[in-house]
C-alpha cells in the first residue's frame, strides 16, 4: 500500500497511516504563485500604452526580456519548492511508533519518533472557517516524560486519525503490559 521505506524500520513494523497536510494548504500556496505569474499581464493590460513606449527603447527591451525570464523561472521554482515542502512533510503511524518527518528548507531535515505506548494524551483541533468547512486541523500528541508535543499540522480528517491512533495506543499498551508480566514470570 505504501511504497516507501520507514526510517530505521524495526522487525515486524507495519505502516498503519501516512499523513500529509490537507491538499487545500498546497493549493493555496500554488494559487498565490499563480496570481504572481498573472500580475504582469494585468499590469500590462492596465498600463499597456505607457509600457509599450519603454519597451521600444534599445536599452529597456533587453533588460525586460531578462527580467521576465528570471521572474517566471523563479515563480516556477517556488511552485515546485512548495510542492516538495508539502510532499516531504509527513507523519507516519506504524504499529510500534509515530514518526514525524519535516523538511525545513533545502538542507534541514528533521525526523523524530515516539513509541506508541509512551503516548498519554491525543487532542485534535479544528480552528477557522476553512479548517471547519474542509475538515482539516492539528493533532497534538503528548508523550510521557516529554515536554515537547508531537504536532500533526493541518492534516485531513483529524478526528478519524485520533480515533485510529487512540486504538493503536491502547492495543500497544496492553501488549506492553503483557510483555512486562511475562518478563516478571520468567525472572521469578
Amino acid at each position, binding site marked *: 500500500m505504501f*511504497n516507501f521505506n520507514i526510517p530505521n524500520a524495526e522487525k515486524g513494523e507495519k505502516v498503519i497511516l501516512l499523513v500529509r497536510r490537507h491538499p487545500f494548504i498546497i493549493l493555496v500556496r500554488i494559487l498565490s504563485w499563480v496570481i504572481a505569474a498573472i500580475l504582469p499581464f494585468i499590469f500590462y493590460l492596465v498600463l499597456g500604452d505607457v509600457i509599450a513606449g519603454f519597451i521600444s527603447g534599445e536599452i529597456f527591451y*533587453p533588460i525586460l526580456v531578462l527580467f521576465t525570464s528570471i521572474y517566471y523561472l523563479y515563480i516556477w521554482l517556488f511552485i515546485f*519548492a512548495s510542492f516538495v515542502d508539502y510532499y516531504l512533510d509527513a507523519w507516519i503511524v506504524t504499529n510500534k511508533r509515530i514518526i514525524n518527518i519535516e523538511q525545513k528548507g533545502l538542507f534541514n531535515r528533521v525526523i523524530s519518533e515516539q513509541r506508541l505506548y509512551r503516548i498519554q494524551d491525543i487532542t485534535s483541533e479544528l480552528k477557522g472557517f476553512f479548517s471547519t468547512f474542509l475538515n482539516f486541523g492539528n493533532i497534538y500528541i503528548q508523550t510521557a516524560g516529554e515536554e515537547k508535543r508531537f504536532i500533526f499540522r493541518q492534516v485531513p480528517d483529524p478526528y478519524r486519525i485520533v480515533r485510529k491512533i487512540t486504538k493503536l495506543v491502547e492495543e500497544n499498551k496492553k501488549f506492553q503490559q503483557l510483555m512486562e508480566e511475562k518478563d516478571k514470570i520468567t525472572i521469578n
Partner: protein
Amino acid sequence: MAIPLSIFYYLYLILVLIYLFYTFFNVYHLMRFGFLTLGNIVMVIFYLIVSSLILIISWNYISQIDWQQTISVIPQFQP
C-alpha cells in the same frame, strides 16, 4: 561614462545558475526522500519540461539581442 549591456546578461546567467542549483537539490530531495511513486516521478518530469520550455523560449529572445551595446550612466552634454 558607459557600462556594457552584457553586465545584465552575466547577472542573468548567475541567477540561472542559482536556479539550476536549487532545482537540482529539490529534485534530489524528492528522489532521495520522496518515496519513489509514479506521481512523484511525473511531477519531477513535468517540472523539468516546463523549466526547459521557459529557458528555450527565453533563449529565443535573448539570442536576438546585441549584448555589445553600452548604456550611458552619466548623460553627455554637447557644447
